[in-house]
């Protein structure tokens, strides 16, 4: 349990909570529920949380898997500097965002889920994790023609010149004799 990266799980949870908030808000607004203003807020909050959480952080150890098309989001989120880098800020931000969702039935699920994500981010922050952008590395040039081996340095083994010369008078003896015995190598 020592090397768990809590932030990765919190990120998945926060993204899912954003979607749940968004869906609940849409249902609330479309059904014209009582208190639909909270639902409208939930739509905006859901979109904001999704945009903030879409770019995955770089793992401290191991390979990081990007989400599709996250580069532009990474650039935007990176530009806020320490506000988005620090997970304490994120934990408190999510806790604050989720509170208005609790006042309406349609958005209460999103509120609870985002609250859980905020707690996990808090745990991640205590463990000292922070958000690192995944930036594309310059790919080192692949060596040209990887599979072509070095050309041979020596000519192939051949018997001495006398044996090679064509002997028309003695055809039997002129047959080529393999100097090396055939092995299973």
């Amino acid at each position, binding site marked *: 349990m020592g090397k768990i990266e809590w932030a990765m799980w919190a990120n998945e949870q926060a993204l899912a909570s954003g979607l749940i908030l968004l869906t609940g808000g849409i249902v609330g607004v479309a059904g014209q529920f009582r208190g639909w203003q909270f639902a409208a807020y939930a739509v905006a909050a859901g979109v904001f949380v999704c945009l903030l959480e879409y770019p995955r952080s770089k793992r401290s150890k191991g390979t990081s898997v990007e989400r599709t098309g996250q580069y532009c989001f990474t650039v935007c989120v990176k530009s806020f500097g320490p506000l988005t880098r620090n997970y304490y800020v994120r934990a408190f931000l999510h806790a604050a965002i989720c509170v208005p969702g609790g006042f309406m039935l349609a958005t209460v699920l999103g509120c609870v889920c985002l609250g859980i994500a905020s707690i996990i981010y808090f745990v991640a922050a205590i463990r000292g994790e922070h958000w690192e952008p995944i930036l594309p590395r310059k790919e080192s040039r692949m060596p040209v023609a990887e*599979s072509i081996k070095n050309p041979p340095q020596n000519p192939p083994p051949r018997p001495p010149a006398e044996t090679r010369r064509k002997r028309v008078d003695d055809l039997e003896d002129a047959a080529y004799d393999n100097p090396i015995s055939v092995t299973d190598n």
Partner: protein
Amino acid sequence: MVVSVRSWVANEGGKHLVLMLWLAANTWLFLKTFLLYSTGQQYHYLYKMLGPGLCISRASASVLNLNCSLVLLPMCRSLLTFVRGSHTVSSRKTRRLLDKSKTFHVACGVAICIFSVVHVSAHLVNVINFSVSYSDDFPALNLARYRGEVRHTHIPGVTGVLLVLILFLMFTSSSYCVRVSNYEIFWYTHNLFIVFYIILMVHMVGGALKYQTNIEAHPPGCLRANQSGAEQLGEELEQGEDEERRCREEAHFQPHYPQTWLWVSGPLCLYCAERFYRYIRSCDPVTIVTVIRHPCDVIELRMLKKNFKARPGQYIVLNCPGVSSFENHPFTLTTCPTENKETFGIHLRVVGDWTERFTQLLLPKPRIDLEILPMVQQRRYPNDGWKGFRLQRLYFVWVCRELQSFYWFAELLCAVHHKLWQENRPDYFNLKLFISQTDNLQEKYRPLTSRLLVGRPRWKLLLDEIAKTNNNKRVGVFCCGPKGISRTLHRLCNSARSSGTTFEFNKESFS
């Protein structure tokens, strides 16, 4: 790359057929329940109150019932292994389908999530409609206690919120990156399924939706005591006709009994029995006979266990209470027990904290003042256990980063090669070894060094060569490696080939 119909059908046909059947079952269930609630006589008044929200919520609930029961079945691994190995399921197609059980589990899981969203949204609309269309004619039908009350503190509401929370935790921790980086989070949250199922079975207690029980005595839409047909039609009607359409008694409503347990209890009991069986089997102790250290942090472990049978290609799950009581790690068997030799073996590479601690327990650090006695190593030609395989030729392609890695299996590969050379079957076993970096090559393992190729293999050329030499045959491709190789091979196996060879793609992954 052009996809060949025959190759695609051989590789993907079975899976897609099962997928179509499953989708058809879900669609049929959804439509049947939807129509029942929208046109059924017993739901007439309820439908008038709630509208299509009623039908959507109930239809999605029945689809959820089906998927919650199906999702457990692919996880009964011991049962599936037994079915797969039995002679009743001897077709290779069925065996390859059973290999895809985890994909089916994921499909059912995704369906559960999607339909939960639909179900919750529809019920939110229902709650509002219960409040807005509070019925004074049929007070028993209402959920709200008075007009305008949005009631959510009843059993289905509270259990529903808990269910969604558990599902949220399970779903967010089962994404690929969380599984790969922190498997424990995935494993421990996924074991919350038992809480999920218990709450699911009481979800419908105190049902909010009621159906009418006395349809013959009170046909829906009949005239009530304080109404008359003349008021509605504005015309004088015959007395008799009026009487016919009058209700003989008041409408009686009754909530549904919880039905989820009918769907879910069978698979749940089966899965619990499966876990219990696994636990019982794991209680037998395992003796470690040999521990061999190979280059590049690889340990070979030979073990003995009573009544242990295994076939090539299977894997075992190791649990070492000295390292961690709850962690179970899968390893493919590299040596299977045979009639003559009962030991079985695995090769494990020290990558994470569990393997590191395990290796430390097995091989304590050498101290300078202690004399290290060599472990007894048994080397034998793999003569036994070679019966009953229809294999005609084997191509072994192994890609490693450095030369030292090949030494893990050097002895075994050379032994196999020598055995086949003695039996005059030199073309049975074709070795192709690839390394990314060259190094000093040891002369001891000549059969390996003369077959080394530098650089990554060009899979298309390799498969083309194999296809040309094996016309009109079925070639099984077994890939154990990173996703990149697996995807490329899968695509190549599906592509068109002029030589009539079909490549059947199989892969092994534990994440």
